[in-house]
């Protein structure tokens, strides 16, 4: 457990260095409150929510509505285009590099993490790994590598004009990360 705490603090420090904002929730209830707060503070009105077991278990639709925002509608493309915030889940967080990793083969996960200007990423703390090699090994030991595996480190950035760092060029300009802690008991994995 101490080791996990070290990974969490290393990840958080590195992700922040890259310009991400990192939060922690130790229970689903805390997570829901945090998501509501984040939506309110960012002031977004239109939110796209990806489908994933983790996100489904948190039952975020009422949270989004309670925060005064609405879930975007229409085709996947329309949803992604109109959303100001995309919410997606990640499987892994790499401590050394401050990187999130997810299987983004499903189109909603991919589009909602790429197109909106604000990206809210939820990742369970049990998904913390030390380095990139451990992250790759995680996928290798699970059988076939997913069709679209995405590593995300901080917001979208460019320094193409005069080497001046500017965020939000094609992807999200803000990356907010919520680390989800589990209740102690479920340690059968």
């Amino acid at each position, binding site marked *: 457990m101490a080791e996990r705490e070290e990974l969490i603090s290393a990840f958080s420090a590195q992700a922040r260095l890259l310009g991400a904002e990192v939060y922690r929730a130790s229970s689903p209830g805390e997570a829901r409150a945090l998501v509501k707060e984040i939506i309110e503070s960012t002031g977004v009105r239109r939110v796209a929510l990806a489908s994933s077991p983790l996100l489904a278990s948190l039952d975020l639709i009422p949270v989004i509505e309670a925060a005064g925002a609405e879930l975007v509608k229409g085709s996947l493309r329309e949803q992604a285009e109109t959303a100001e915030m995309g919410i997606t889940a990640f499987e892994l967080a790499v401590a050394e590099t401050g990187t999130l990793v997810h299987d983004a083969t499903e189109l909603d996960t991919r589009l909602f993490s790429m197109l909106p200007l604000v990206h809210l990423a939820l990742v369970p703390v049990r998904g913390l790994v030390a380095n*990139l*090699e451990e992250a790759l090994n995680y996928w290798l030991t699970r059988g076939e590598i997913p*069709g679209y*595996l*995405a590593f995300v*480190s901080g917001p979208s950035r460019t*320094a*193409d*004009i005069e080497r001046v760092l500017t965020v939000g060029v*094609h992807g999200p300009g803000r990356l907010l990360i919520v680390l989800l802690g589990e209740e102690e008991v479920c340690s059968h994995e």
Partner: protein
Amino acid sequence: MNELREKVKKALANRRVSWALTHFADNYVIAREKAYAGKDFATLRQKVAQIKEETIARLEELAEQFTREATRRGAVVYRAASAEEARAYIADLARAKGIETVVKSKSMATEELHLNRYLQQQGLEVVETDLGEWIIQLSGQRPSHLVMPAIHLSRQEVAEIFREKLGVEVEPDIGRMVKLARRELRKKFLGAWMGISGANLAVAETGTLVILTNEGNARLTTTLPPVHVVVVGLEKLVPRLVDIVPVLEVLPRSATAQILTSYVTLITGSVPAVDPEGNYLPQKELHIILLDNGRTRMAADPVFREALKCIRCAACLNVCPVYQQLGGTFGAVYTGGIGVILTAFFTGFEEAAQLQELCLGCQRCREYCSANIDLPGLIEELRRRVVAKKGVGPAARVALAGILPRRRLFHTFLRTAARLQAPWVKEGKLCRLPFFPELTEGRALPPLSLVPFRDRTARLPRPQSPRGKVLFFSGCLIDYVFPRIGEAVDRVLAAMGWELVHPKGQGCCGFPVWQAGLPGTFARLAQQNLAALAEIEAEAVITACPTCTVALKYLYPEVLKGDAKWAELARVLAEKVTDFSSFVWERREEILPILAPIRERITYHDSCHLKYTLRADRAPRELLLAGGAELKEMAPPELCCGFGGSFTLKFPELSRAILKRKLQAIEGSGAETVALDCPGCLWQIGSVFSGKAKHTAEILAESLKYPLAL
């Protein structure tokens, strides 16, 4: 040749390029060092090199495995032998599907194909989506850097390009211009039916493509359009998925001093998509073009196969003093030293034959290469092949192949020139030479000495009961331009108790000939010098010129290794060769007691051969410090002076531009004296520096408590 020099002059006239590149380069070295904190670069790059070596050895096998795996996962893999085949495949695909709009994410392989121009000729709209590439595309220019294509443009110029090409008024504010780009390019992404990308790696084991970006444009390119075409060079293959880790660790650190790029995307086979009309496709089309275009030929070349290890981090460009001045002019599609080598195989030997002249041979790039490529060695080999094919040109043939190897003729020539130069010597400096006016313009070069070092040796001090005998290999510059350095070497060594002998049969070390690509002539000079040095039994061979040291110590054994008569002698002698400062520092107990405190504020100039080949840059510093000097390091510490031997004659303007930067660093240190260990650097730096420029031997000789009488 003159055509190239004109291009160089034109590039130098654009100060903006060199300003941006030098500014970036200085920060880059520091930021990169920080990014590698806690990592062992030497080990990491060795890993990368090993992986790539396996790739090169198993190229065809890995290509087949990749094809099988990617196909199994739903991709279509096309093996393109040439640029034409690759272009035609893409154009045919677009035509067959009725596609008119294409978005691209930055890819050097497609630059190599000149794909945009070709597709546009076929009537397609092709939009680059990497911000830098897009700006370059809008302006109709050429990328000036592998990683940062628009590094040479200012924000005002970018605003002007947007105004002119998009008809949008935008302030030259970077944040606003980035927003504008996002808005404009988002429309293109959403309307495109084909996305074209490159890939940084292709994994044979899994059929996976790996793409690194910061902006996220590759993610959109590979996600939104219903057809994705990847153009990837064969050399980007790696055997196993875990092999990507060392590359992921090195590439961003070396390229942009980042721990990791914002996005790393692993695409394995076909994935779902929604087309611009909203139709959901469970399996989008993924076409992977494995591009050969000279790569198999390169892999079969015993020397140049090494260049296929390149992972395109562009570190070699960032640290190259020539590239910093010229930008994209030093190269073709691929720029810098590595660009010259790749150009020779991928796009055109003739173009590369000309461009290789621009390498000044400082060796710095080798220190930074992410894949441990001996790039200076490859450029030397290219130069030899160019010379073998086309010769060296009439002036160089007379000077290098005709005069230099004939020692007596060469020395008579130098003595005659020393007498004839009188009308152009003013106050001990050479001014306004009639043959090379650019060389003397605005600076004062040292003239040839009327009495060369070899004529002064009889009067040099000698210890009463010597500890032993050492040979001095002076080299041409010390012998004929700076005999005072030879005298200083002698005085220091004599004071330490060593008898210095200067064998008269020695001539030019041959490096200029080697550098010009004439290994045969070089071998002849090596034999002459070996014969002269072998005549006298001695404990060591001392040099005070790092370039001569490199020739004697490394190049003679190399060039003579197959020669039954000379190989052994070259090897034995090489072990005895040492540069002056290292020799003295190793025996510091013999000198420190007889040294009066050096009361000078000194900055030390690293000569390229001393630092990067001999790795002897500590010894002179230690000596000066132990002698009591106040040592002020210059920032940045490791800049080439721009001499480069014949380089300064071929490209005087470029040489001067590099020197100017060196001068700023020296002056910035606040030191009154610049110390160095190379007469070539002294020739160059001494001609413009208003303070004192001295060889380490001179500083020590001046500080001897009991100098033996001359």
